[in-house]
């Protein structure tokens, strides 16, 4: 699992590569918390290079979503592969977290 960070239109874009499971969910959580700055009010996770996410990974997404909600910060996901999107749909997480087809669309939506 690798995370690379970029910014566009005041949106922090964290691109997640590889897989997130029980073994590295904690590492994923720490990496995201480290990447998201105090002043970031718009956070986008780009999942285009994510190959797998387990329920332990979903829990981290939920933790981050709650944290950002408390700060009134925007939070979204983009570019989910079909199997990953299915995980979000089955668990119902797509109802509480906004999901966009592409990075451009997401940045357009939540950016400045």
């Amino acid at each position, binding site marked *: 699992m690798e995370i690379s960070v970029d910014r566009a239109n005041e949106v922090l874009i964290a691109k997640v590569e590889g897989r997130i*499971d*029980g*073994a590295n*969910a904690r590492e994923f959580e720490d990496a995201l918390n480290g990447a998201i700055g105090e002043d970031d009010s718009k956070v986008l996770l780009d999942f285009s290079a994510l*190959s*797998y996410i*387990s*329920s*332990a990974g*979903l*829990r981290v997404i*939920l*933790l981050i979503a*709650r944290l950002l909600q408390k700060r009134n910060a925007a939070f979204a996901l983009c570019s989910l592969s079909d*199997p990953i999107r299915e995980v979000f749909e*089955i*668990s*119902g*997480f797509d*109802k*509480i977290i906004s999901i966009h087809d592409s990075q451009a669309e997401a940045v357009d939506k939540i950016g400045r």
Partner: protein
Amino acid sequence: MTQTPYKILVVDDEPDLEHLMRQRMRRDVRSGLYTLYFAQNGVEALERLNEVPDIDMVLSDINMPRMDGLTLLAQIPNIAPDIRAVVVSAYGDMKNIRTAMNRGAFDFITKPIDFQDLRVTIERTLKNMEEWREALESRDKLVRLQNELNVASKMQQSILPTEFPDSDHCEIYANMEPAREVGGDFFDVFGLPGGKIALAIADVSDKGVPAALFMMSSRTLLKGSAIGAIEPGAVLKEVNDLLTEENEAAMFVTTFYAVYNPQTGQVDYSNGGHNPPLVVHSDGSSTLLPGTDGLALGVFPGVNFGQSAVVLSPGDLLLLYTDGVTEAMNADGEEFGMDRLQAVFADDPPGSTEDANKAVFKAVHEFAGETPQSDDITCVTVLQRQV
């Protein structure tokens, strides 16, 4: 320093050495760092070791009357396995040094004794011994933890039902294979008023002890709610509201809950973010149960849970499963997936619910091969009998 002095046993047949050692080490002895004991040969050394408990270190000469240092080395582990031994040998006596090291000596110094070197060697030896003791303590703690986990695992397994309804109308079977000692999956099957049967399958985010604790409370809440309310959507709503009340850790549990009427085959269900169950028909074809617009429990308070219904025809099999089945991976990183699950029954519709579960577990294990199981695998199966 307030700790008890390290006890060092010095074994040498030269009578002058005791005097010399006491003189050279007197500051360390007086400050309470070391206590020195002396013996003149291996036999005396063994006697000392038996008399004085907790000797930390032995410093021994090799050539001595009655019992030499190499023989002593071989004897020490029988009396005190954790003791560190350092041998004193003639300069260049590689053969004896090798033998001593092979018999478990920690280090060696050469004669004539360089007391500066001796002091460093003693410090290093005792430090190593301290670390060794700490490692042993950690290991003991781990063993204790492991034992507690085993108890927790047994408790967890013991709350899962092992006896299932078996009547003219239906047959039910369920089982779970946890990936670790304590898991996050659970299922429940219990009777409701009017001859109906409650069916539940659930999967807590993550595994291990936190998941197991969350699983225990989810299971208790679900059973309590199921007995009070009859509509599956209302049951999940109540459990969700209770679980979200205090959930700082953001744990959640995907839950499929159904009320099954064996007389009519009707299954009223609500799906809280769980994998869609499968209805396998007697010809081997199968269909997924449509969702009910649900969300995993524990995520968001106050949400409503929809519900839906399906009627099982005689010969139909309803299979509830967790993602440990569909997300089982093989060495190439491929997932078992829905297609393979449906294929299990396509050519070979099972005769009984237990056979159905066995067939699923077998297919998953064969697919995964040597790849270790990373998630709990659970199946609950209901067969609507041909009357």
